[in-house]
Each structure stands twice: as structure tokens, then as C-alpha cells.
């Protein structure tokens, strides 16, 4: 396979040769991933960290930034390996195992590199990195990109937007939880049940975005 062929593959969607860059479609992907089909509130991806790291606003912001960062890198890696290696070798069925390996080692490498070379960035982002391995939003976006047959460009856009959507939900959640910490919540609902109830309310509100960009 020569270089130009690889380039054309990267830039175009895998199954059709002539899909160019389309601003409208990109907007649709972005709006869908952030609002309409928000990863957390409508697709149920990344619930564990969403519930776990939303107690403090500062952690939520850090986690969100880390997720966006890793999501982008993981998508880049997984998309390339899938379309440049697995598909030509007819090994599509290995995608799950390959993706998770890529994500796990990527996260660990990034964490170690940050810790070594940029302690300040590590303190801001790095401490959230381990949690990301088991964040199904990362693997989810990688798999979804393949399922939707997005080109690399769209895949990256989708990944970043999904990360932003995750972050948005996380930050809103953190704000609400901090407010409710001072509220007179019935004892039975304190803690995790409350977190899920807030998520439910947020999810209802996000239904308002339905149909947007469609």
C-alpha cells in the first residue's frame, strides 16, 4: 500500500471514495454528540466516572479535560489500527480486544509521561487518567466510530464532541450535587441515589435538545 493510498483512506470514509468534508454534517455530529445523544445522559456511557467524580467541581473539570484528551488520542489510535491493519487483514473481529489494549496502554503511557515530564499537568489531568481506562465512553466512542463508518476526520470530531458532552454533563452534575449537599434531602436518597436522580432530571431536560441539528 503506498502513501497516497493511505492518505486517501485517512481522509475519506472507508466505504465510499467520494465523501468529502461537509460542514453541515460535522455540525450535526457535534450537536448530536454533545446535546441530543449526550454520551452520559442518553447513551449511558461513562456512568461510573460520571457518578464517581462529580462530587467536586474542580475534579469534574479536570476529569472532563482528561477525557477529551484521551478520547481524541484513543480514537486516533483505534481508527488507524482498525482501518489500516485489521480491515486489510480481515481481522475486524479483533477490534474489541485491540481497542481496549490500545486504550489501556495509551492511558498508562500518557499518565507516566505526564508524571515524569510535567508534574503540574499531571496534577491537573494525570490523576484522572487511570479512571479513564475503565470509562466505557472511551471504548464506546472508538467502537461507535467504526460502527458508523466515520472517516478519520469525522471520528475525531465525534470523539472531541463526545468528550465535550461528557464534560458538560459532568460539570453540570458537579454543580448540582454541590448545591444539593446543602439541601435537606430525604435520608434514603442521599448519596448515590441522589446522583442518579439528578442524572435523571438532567436527562429529562436534555430531551429538549431532541431533534436539534437533524
Amino acid at each position, binding site marked *: 500500500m503506498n502513501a497516497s493510498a493511505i492518505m486517501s483512506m485517512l481522509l475519506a470514509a472507508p466505504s465510499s471514495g467520494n465523501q468529502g468534508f461537509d460542514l453541515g454534517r460535522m455540525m450535526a455530529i457535534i450537536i448530536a454528540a454533545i446535546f441530543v445523544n449526550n454520551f452520559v445522559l442518553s447513551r449511558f456511557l461513562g456512568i461510573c466516572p460520571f457518578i464517581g467524580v462529580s462530587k467536586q*467541581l474542580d475534579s469534574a473539570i479536570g476529569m472532563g479535560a482528561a477525557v477529551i484528551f484521551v478520547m481524541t488520542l484513543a480514537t486516533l489510535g483505534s481508527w488507524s489500527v482498525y482501518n489500516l491493519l485489521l480491515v486489510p487483514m480481515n481481522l475486524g473481529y479483533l477490534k474489541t480486544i485491540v481497542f481496549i489494549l490500545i486504550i489501556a496502554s495509551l492511558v498508562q503511557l500518557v499518565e507516566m509521561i505526564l508524571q515524569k515530564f510535567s508534574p503540574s499537568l499531571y496534577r491537573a489531568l494525570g490523576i484522572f487518567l487511570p479512571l479513564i481506562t475503565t470509562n466505557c465512553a472511551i471504548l464506546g466512542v472508538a467502537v461507535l466510530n467504526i460502527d458508523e463508518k466515520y472517516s478519520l476526520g469525522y471520528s475525531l470530531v465525534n470523539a472531541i464532541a463526545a468528550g465535550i458532552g461528557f464534560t458538560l454533563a459532568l460539570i453540570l452534575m458537579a454543580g*448540582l450535587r454541590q448545591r*444539593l449537599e446543602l439541601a435537606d*434531602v430525604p435520608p434514603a436518597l442521599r448519596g448515590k441515589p441522589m446522583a442518579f436522580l439528578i442524572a435523571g432530571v438532567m436527562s429529562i*431536560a436534555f430531551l*429538549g435538545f431532541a431533534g436539534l441539528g437533524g
Partner: protein
Amino acid sequence: MEHKRFELAMSPHVGTHQSTRKIMFDVVIALLPALAAATWFFGPGALLIVALSVGAAVLAEYLCLKFMKRPVSFAFDGSAIVTGILLAYNVPPGVPWWLPILGSAFAIAVGKQAFGGLGHNIVNPALLGRAFLMASFPILMTAGWTAPEEWRNGQNNPWETNGIVQEELLEMPNADAISGATPLNVLKQSFDLDKSADLANKEGNHAEALDLEARASGIRHALSQKSTYLNLLVGRRGGCIGETSVLLLLAGALFLIIRGVLEIRLPISYLGTVAIFAWVFGGSGWFNGDPIFHVLAGGVILGGFFMVSDMVTTPVTPKGRIIFGIGAGLLTMIIRRWGGYPEGCSYSILLMNLVTPLIDRFIRPKVFGEVKEND
């Protein structure tokens, strides 16, 4: 020496005569004129829906408090009544009787009491109840419209009675009469026609596209007529129970302002934003929308004066309130123009309710004497 003994408390020892209860009942009173309009246009059915909704809300509040072993007197502080009325005001007049009951019960139980009751709820319970109904019974909630005064003259003729004056339209070339239960539905249709026109253009059917575009702009033209405005003001239009008469809603709002209950920044920033963005992108293209229509149609007036200004779920600081109003206004217009629903008022407020804690956290007034560099 024995001296007379007195009770003790922290200063101040005097206070205003306002109380939560009084505020709530003021809001109830302010909402009543609109109920009269609703009953006039939609018949006693509307009254029944409001009554059921209020009853269910108060009952649900009472039962929740009882279940949680909290003082049940809170159930009668009027806040449940406000929630009940607002919920009923946000459903179409033709819904079955059990719908508002279910909605109110959900609004109170899940939207309010689960969070700890009055003052602790994160979103407006009535709006949450409405969103719950929208998600659960989308067909009933989007098809339960009745035309104004239909109950009296017995004919369902939305062509004349949804508030849009047809004569104007019929004079337009290529413009058929339009149907649609509410003015905003009609507007949404015009956007749909625009979309179809784009499609036709893409396919190369330029003649068809022109025709569609003409019809779309014809509809929008009809919506911007004085007579349409008048109908919207009076309340002769299709829509939710509470959003009929703009005039009577304004009267209620005026009452609240006089009573010092209404925080004026929220409605003003909200309605102002709606108007501005209605002009910016409320029409087919840019900067040609009709702000007057957008403000009068749908639930913006009801929302602006009675739901955006809900104290519990909006920021406490003046600056925060202005930001809240702007955000809600922008979201309303985005949903109206590009979203899946013809009306975005209630969802926009719900969404901004979620942002309220963040606004409260980051937007605080400058403390007296605080040096600027700390900001």
C-alpha cells in the same frame, strides 16, 4: 429579686410582613386571570384540568411529607398550588383528565420532595412534570389541542381559530390556507417548507422550490399581521391552557410587580433575549425574524413571568439572574428554530435550571470594600 422573664432570639427582632406563604398565594392570584381566559376559550374542561392538577399536587405533597415524617403543614404553604397551576397551564386543553394528575404527582414527588422539598429542588417542578409528560405521552401532549371557542360554537376549525388570520394569507400567490394547532406549529411548518424547498433545489426542481419558498414566506407573512398579534394578545389562539391571553398574564405579572414579589430582571432579560434572537434568526434567514410574534406566541410570556422567575431554581444574584434570562432566551429560540419542538420555552428553562448552581458559584456581587484584584 425576681424579674419578669422574656423569650430570647437573635436580632433583628422585627421583620417585614412578607412570608413564603404570602408570596406563593400572590403568585396564585396573579395566575388566576389567565385561567379565566383559558376557561373562556377552551371551556370548563380547562378549568377541570387545572383543578385536578392543583388537587393532585397538594395531595402528593401532603402524602410525601407524611411518608417522610416531615411537618405536613408545608403542603399548604401554597407552593404546591403554584406548581399544580403551572403544570396545568403547560398542557394542551384536550388532554385526558388523568394526565395532569399524573404530571403533578410526578412534579411534586420526584421534582420537589425527593430533593428535600421547597427550596431544595434543582429544577422547576412544574416544568419537570411537563417534560415528564412530554416524554411519556408525546402523542397526547402534541395532539391534545383544541381550537379556541370550539367548545362553544362546536366546530373544530383551526384554520380560522388558531389565531392566524387567513384572509391575509389567501391573497398571497401560491399560498394555501394553513393548518396547525398552535401558531408556533404553523411557524415550524414554514421552516419545514423551507427545508423541502432546499431539498427540491438539491434535486433540481427549482420551480417546486420556488413554490415551496413562497408558501413558507406567505405563512410567515400571515403570522406577522396586526390581526394575528391582536388574537395572540387577547388569547384567541390554540395553545396550552395557560398561554392563551398575553394581556391577562401581563396583568397578573403587574400585580406581582406591585406586590414586590416579582424579580424584574429575569423576565426582562429573558423576553429581551427572545426578542433579539427572534429578530436575528427567528425567520427564514438571518436578521429578518419577527420579534413581536415570537414574544407573543407560545409560552414565552407565561414562562418569562411565572417560570423563569421561579425563585428557587434561578440564581440569587442580580447579575446571575440576567445571565440566566439570556441563556434561557437563547435556548428557547434555538429550540424553536432548529429543535424538534415548535416551542422551546419550558425546556430552555429546565436546561438553565441545571446551570443555576454554576452561575451562583461563579457570578457573585463584588463585596463592599473588597479590593478589585481579588476578582
